């Protein structure tokens, strides 16, 4: 398919210029040199074609041929995506390992989806039906957790003249014929979509469903809605990756797309090692059965890092269109922005802030706007893509351009704090700097689940934490003993909130994931402690006595001692709380 379109005239790292055909399109994929390195056209001027090359260009010389493909950078879509691990341009890494061994060699061609696998297709439509984009043709059990719904691709309208009977098919075998005025289109399970173009949908829905992550500080305090966008900024060691992994493990999304963008090789290996053995608490299936991994580690070619984000979001939209709630984790968007900067620098473009190109904000906006909860093209199905982007600000300075521009396009900000991380308070999400604009939108969601009190409890707890932060400034100067007892109680309750609720141990079997039910019960009992203690302290009981009640220790440990399946145990704790408080109260009345 590829035709000679020109020859290389200049090489500078991943950026290459060629001279040749004027019929090459912007963003077309081309192949460079005898090794057929994959590249994309990023600039055209007269007969000079500027390319970014997705592979290492070492050894590439002027005069080398450039071949056009006529296609934009696209991904393959079809059964077999889930449980796979791809590089930034959707080459399956296990296949690359078979072809070139431990190290990634250049110029290896490998299709994203394996052509010879047979998939069990069951038609769910009668031939003779008029079909439109997004309509369900049939289903394929892709993994025990994911039913792959084969849909009429965007742009195809007409009459279904034939649909394959139930049976085993490869992704290239025809499964349906659609006829319209311009002829017959043969549909297979394999479809393609250009990564830089968002997949179409019918209309957007407001983000009112919560994405339950099982992480208390997120769900209770800074909730993310399905179809929303969140950012996790933080310096190194603050816990971005652990938080992303925790959401990938425990959130109630149907499909997880995890993009390791310019990060550590061992982190991807860790996911590959761990996920097949972990169980999704919502479906009781291995987590890998709902996960797609994209790994373009920091030492892999920088242009493919730039592409990896788009590859990931396109796969996410594809499953959204089937009616799934998809969560995409991008770790880290800063590395993606740096890839933009590196390529921009080699093109000698005029930089804006800190060397980043002026179009950084526009690119970030395009990416985050691909999140959303939508009604798909068939006008019936709803699905969502939620984006959770990690940001790695230089020097943990949130005023740098990537963090600043990102905050304009997300509505949920989970600020990681180095001081908390140093004290091993994890997740090190600062409750004073973080925010979620979805709070009001998900109130009905909590009400529907019988937790109408959530909004009030949350506000009360945050207020205590805020008062604590002001009081701590005083404590730093005069010590806690100098405070009146009602204020010392605020410190005590805040300690319970911090240590007993906000801190969550990702490595503890029980604590790693907390159901909504348990979160509410935990929060409510801590606040009950506060209210009852406040009444007793007002009667003259010193806080040190309240603090020594046995129930305090129980409250601190309930996160690990009460399993999610036995939340009623918190009722027992509540009874002993009341008993101890009653006894104390009688001493002071």
């Amino acid at each position, binding site marked *: 398919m590829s035709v000679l379109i020109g020859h290389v005239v*200049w*090489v500078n*790292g991943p950026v290459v210029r060629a001279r040749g055909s004027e019929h090459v399109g912007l963003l077309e994929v081309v192949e460079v040199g005898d090794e057929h390195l994959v590249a994309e056209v990023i600039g055209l001027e007269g007969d000079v074609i500027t390319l970014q090359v997705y592979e*290492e*260009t*070492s*050894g*590439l*010389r*002027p*005069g080398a041929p450039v071949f056009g493909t006529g296609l934009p950078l696209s991904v393959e879509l079809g059964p077999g995506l889930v449980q796979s*691990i791809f590089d930034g341009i959707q080459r399956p*890494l296990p296949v*690359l*390992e078979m072809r*070139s*061994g*431990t*190290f*990634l060699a250049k110029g290896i061609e490998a299709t994203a989806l394996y052509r010879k696998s047979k998939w069990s297709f069951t038609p769910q439509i009668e031939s003779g039906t008029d079909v439109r984009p997004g309509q369900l043709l049939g289903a394929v059990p892709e993994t025990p957790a994911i039913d792959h719904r084969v849909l009429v691709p965007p742009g195809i309208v007409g009459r279904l003249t034939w649909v394959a009977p139930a049976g085993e098919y490869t992704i290239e075998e025809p499964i349906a014929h659609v006829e319209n005025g311009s002829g017959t289109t043969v549909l297979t399970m394999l479809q393609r979509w250009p990564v830089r173009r968002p997949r179409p949908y019918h209309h957007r829905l407001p983000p009112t469903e919560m994405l339950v992550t099982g992480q208390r500080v997120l769900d209770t305090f800074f909730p993310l809605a399905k179809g929303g966008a969140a950012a996790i900024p933080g*310096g*190194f*060691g603050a816990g971005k990756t652990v938080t992303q992994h925790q959401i990938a493990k425990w959130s109630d999304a149907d499909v997880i797309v995890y993009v390791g963008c*310019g990060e*550590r*090789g*061992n982190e*991807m*290996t*860790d996911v*590959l*090692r761990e996920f097949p053995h972990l169980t999704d608490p919502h479906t009781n299936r291995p987590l890998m059965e709902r996960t797609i991994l994209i790994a373009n*580690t*920091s*030492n892999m070619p*920088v242009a493919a890092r730039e592409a990896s984000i788009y590859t990931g979001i396109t796969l996410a939209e594809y499953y959204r269109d089937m009616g799934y709630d998809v969560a995409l984790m991008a770790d880290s968007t800063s590395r993606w922005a*740096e890839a933009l*900067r590196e390529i*921009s*620098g080699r093109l*000698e473009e005029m*930089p804006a802030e*800190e*060397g*980043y190109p002026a179009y950084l904000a526009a690119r970030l906006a395009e990416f985050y706007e691909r999140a959303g909860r939508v009604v798909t093209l068939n006008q019936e199905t709803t699905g969502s893509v939620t984006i959770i982007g990690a940001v*790695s600000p*230089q*020097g*943990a300075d949130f005023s740098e351009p990537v963090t600043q521009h990102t905050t304009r396009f997300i509505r949920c900000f989970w600020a990681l704090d180095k001081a908390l991380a*140093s*004290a*091993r308070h994890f997740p090190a999400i600062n409750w004073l700097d973080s925010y979620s604009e979805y709070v009001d939108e998900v109130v009905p969601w909590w009400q529907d689940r019988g937790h109408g009190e959530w909004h009030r409890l949350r506000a009360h707890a945050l207020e205590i934490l805020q008062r604590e932060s002001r009081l701590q400034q005083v*404590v*730093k100067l*005069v*010590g806690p*003993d100098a405070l009146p007892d009602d204020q010392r109680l605020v410190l005590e309750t805040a300690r319970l909130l911090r240590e007993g609720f906000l801190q969550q141990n990702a*490595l503890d079997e029980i604590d790693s994931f907390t159901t909504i039910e348990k979160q509410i019960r935990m929060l409510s009992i801590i606040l009950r402690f506060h209210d009852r203690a406040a009444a007793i302290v007002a009667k003259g009981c010193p806080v040190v006595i309240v603090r020594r009640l046995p129930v305090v*220790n129980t409250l601190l*440990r309930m996160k690990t001692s009460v399993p999610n399946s036995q939340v009623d145990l918190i009722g027992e704790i509540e009874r002993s709380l009341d008993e101890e408080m009653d006894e104390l109260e009688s001493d002071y009345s």
Partner: protein
Amino acid sequence: MISASERGGQEVVGAARIEGPIVVVEGVTGIGYDEMAEVVDRQGRIRRGRVLEVGERFAVVEVFAGTTGLTIADTSVRFVGEPMRIPVSSEMLGRIVDGLGEPIDGGPAPLAEHWADVNGQPINPTARVYPRDTIQTGISALDGMNTLVLGQKLPIFSGSGLPHDRLAAQIVRQATLTHTGDASYAKRFAIVFAAMGIKHDVAAFFRESFTAGGAISRVAMFLNLADDPPIERLVTPHTALTLAEFLAFERDMHVLVILTDMTNYCEALRQLSNIRGEVPSRKGYPGYLYSNLAMVYERTGRVKGSRGSITQIPILTMPNDDITHPVPDLTGYITEGQIVLSREMFQRGIYPPIAVLPSLSRLMKDSIGPEHTRADHASLAAQLYAAYAHVQDVRSLASVIGEEELATADQAYLRFGRAFEQEFVGQGPEESRTIEQTLDIGWRALSILPRDELTRVSEAEINEHYGEH
């Protein structure tokens, strides 16, 4: 060395431009990007270089040895026709070579078992084996709180004048695998030492330390010293890691790589970028510093099909002790943790002056516990962190209101802080502790605190270890 002309490359006489370490030649065609070149001066002496940019009629060459003495008319450049390769072999252990891998110890060139591309290639993440075997360094602040794992990249963030060299040498000398590890570790152990722009004294210190520990025959030293050409530093870690990869993945050895000082490497990169007129990002460093450092640090780990491993300990001095400086900052984003040295602890006479709170080992979580070290290791470490973090608050309070005014518990924290720093973190430069000893010392320090302050350890652990030691 095989010369360029023997390998059938191109040669051009006369340079178009010479600027800093860069020579631009014109009138050449078909030169490959990243190809190796040999620049020959008027006296016929050869300097090696590498192609940074190629056009239809020109090539930009960085000359590792610098361009001093080169002339426009008499300089000739031969292009080798392929990226830079160096000969690697097990015989390089026990030898001293320069930053490009040429012997400088007076001995003959080692017999090449293999010619390897210095750039290496990225390891496919699916081919990696997740590192889990704990290395016992004998240093409590590491073993107890920031465990080093076989196949990890764990840098030391230091400052000028701090004893990072001594600490690195102590780690090299004392490193053994804990009981879960491979019994033949000691036999298959090798060190690759790469020096970039460090002083002669420092290189001599390491050499003596390796000799005294009896390990010198297992060490390959790649030396680019402070008065050696700066641009050569840009290749030094790559040549050293090329050998390390050969030893680890072709010869099944456990290779510990010391890279010092990465700040000098980054400065050389900045210098080159500056001369080329590239758009700078922070503090004048090029925008690709992160990717460039990743090409060094990611050449670490364990892979399927090999019994060997590469463990990296890069050392870098933070300019002005500033951890947010681009070099430590970007390093921390790539490496699997960091060991931070504290000037304040050093001045109080604590060795090793490891600042426990900002230090971190990311691979620790999966390589401690009953199968690897001891069942209480994880919670003990968490408790020590939490308690020591509280010590910092208490100290700042005590400096305002005085120690006597503190609550009883907080006074205990002050005592704990002193014991922790002096007995747990502090130890002799020759002292090697077992993991058991380290954990017991940790419990001894914790036992200064009232029992009900210990919320990160379980009741059972408290009953077993509290006050026991």
